């Protein structure tokens, strides 16, 4: 019991004094995960829209791959990215291993199937007659695509939340490809694992609280946008 109270007191002391190391870890976590989410959004929404709207051979197989990817274990993703980025690996010459970029790549691969899958599903559940109606109103192909994406903004914002949530709290891949190097690739999750291992419960609890608050804040912003656009 003493340990817990001591830990919480310690945590608040670190938070109140804005411990430079804690701040740095937090900012890196946020930057890496937001960046990865943004990249996944651009690729995922495009890919999901194409798969959702068009018919081509192998489409169903691709869709099943994406749906499988939505549940891919981050550790396995970390392993695959490590193999590729390793000094002797196919992409070794870029020297990305143990850099924040490596974490971004891994996190992109984790969140991409989630965002693509959500987009695909929400585009497909649009009444096909609505497509016909939009075309009948004189929409060009691009105007049609834009209107359909806009019409699915509620599920798409859910996709953003799910995508971001899955990577900011992910630890296996970040540890494997980032290496948890202090001041370079140490993010909230990897720092918590390390602190607990060293018995520094105060630091671990402080970082844990920050992680929870971050996830909550980002979700709150997205939820507000989602609900406002619903009411409009």
């Amino acid at each position, binding site marked *: 019991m003493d340990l817990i109270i001591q830990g919480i007191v310690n945590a608040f002391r670190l938070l109140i004094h804005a411990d430079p190391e804690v701040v740095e870890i937090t900012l890196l976590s946020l930057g890496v995960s937001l960046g990865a989410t943004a990249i996944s959004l651009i690729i995922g929404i495009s890919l999901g829209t194409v798969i959702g709207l068009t018919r081509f051979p192998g489409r169903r197989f691709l869709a099943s791959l994406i749906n499988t990817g939505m549940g891919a274990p981050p550790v396995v993703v970390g392993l695959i990215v490590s193999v590729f980025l390793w000094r002797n690996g196919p992409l070794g010459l870029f020297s990305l291993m143990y850099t924040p970029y490596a974490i971004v790549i891994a996190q992109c691969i984790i969140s991409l199937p989630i965002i693509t899958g959500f987009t695909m599903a929400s585009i497909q559940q649009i*009444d096909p007659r609505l497509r016909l109606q939009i*075309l*009948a*109103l*004189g929409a060009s192909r691009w105007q049609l695509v834009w209107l359909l994406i806009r019409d699915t903004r509620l599920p798409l914002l859910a996709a953003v939340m799910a995508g971001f949530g899955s990577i900011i709290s992910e630890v296996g891949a970040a540890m494997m490809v980032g290496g948890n190097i202090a001041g370079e690739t140490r993010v909230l999750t990897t720092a918590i694992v390390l602190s607990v291992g060293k018995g520094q419960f105060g630091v671990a609890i402080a970082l844990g609280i920050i992680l929870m608050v971050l996830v909550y804040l980002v979700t709150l912003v997205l939820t507000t946008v989602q609900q406002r656009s619903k009411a*409009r």
Partner: protein
Amino acid sequence: MGGETDALIEAEGLSVVLGDQKVLDVPSFRIAANEVLTVIGPNGSGKTTLLLCLASLLKPAAGRITYKGMPVSGPGVFQMRRRSAVVFQEPLLLNSSVWDNVTLGLRLRKIRGEEAKARGLKWLERFGIAHLAKRQARLLSSGEGKRVSLARAFVIEPEVLFLDEPFNALDSPTRQALLEDFESVLRETRVTTLMVTHDRNEALILADRVAVVINGSISQMGTPQEVFSSPVDEEVAGFVQAGNILHGAVRSQSNGLVSISVERGEIQAVSDLPAGSWVTVYLHYEDVTISMPPAETGASSARNQLRGTIVKVFPLGSQLKVTMDCGFNLVSVITRRSWDELGLEVGREVRATFKASSVHLIPRRS
């Protein structure tokens, strides 16, 4: 060229194939500028397919469509969509506000600012939905949604309007109110219109011409009067459930009962229309019964008991279509058995009876 025709849209050799079945086969079809053409026919007869082809939303397997003499194909397809508007059976609204939906066609055409605002407001008001502008479109009632969908079509100020059973699936009062508003907008704008419906009354009220589509081809085309009073064949007759269509004027009205003069005869009907109103009288063949005079048997409570002479008999399967001259031509459908029992023949004097409540009146402008 110009003197040859004033057809706005012409189609030739139009055919649509689904699987190995031909669902539409129309050798020739034309819509004249400013006319209201309704397409009627049973479910699955190809009415909607015809509409989609003409609206450039479905590519036919074969055939040629022209607009003002210019072929509609390739880039012409997009141009055709830009000058027409389509209203489907379902409102099919975007997940946003009523205003956003109504002005969508304008945004797609890059019409913004004051002009968009003025046009949007005008049509919201014209369809009585200005107070709903900020509401979420998908949360509206079906009648309101239909009004949004109509306003969205008119705001474009289309050269051609296509409607696919727009008043379906609405309850009767809602439908009637919307139909009246729509009719007045249509008369006002004189926009060239093709409307698919299976409702006889809609066709009667709105149409300049009616096309009857059965089994993927056009069985008959003509004025509503022609089609409904003289169907070309049994199939058409069976579909239009033909009845008497007469033109007359209300002579007098008292206690919800009007007396209408039709040619040299007179009809009593239940209505509140004032004296002097012009009306189209619609009366189902089946509602007219034939008996032998003298009329003074007192057995019938029907208001209309007209003396007439049988002028024509036409067989309709197990029934006979009997035309009588009662000061105007009145048609009744009776069984062959009644014909025989009454000992009827052409030239025989008979009594035609029908209730004042069976008479359907449609007000006319003139």
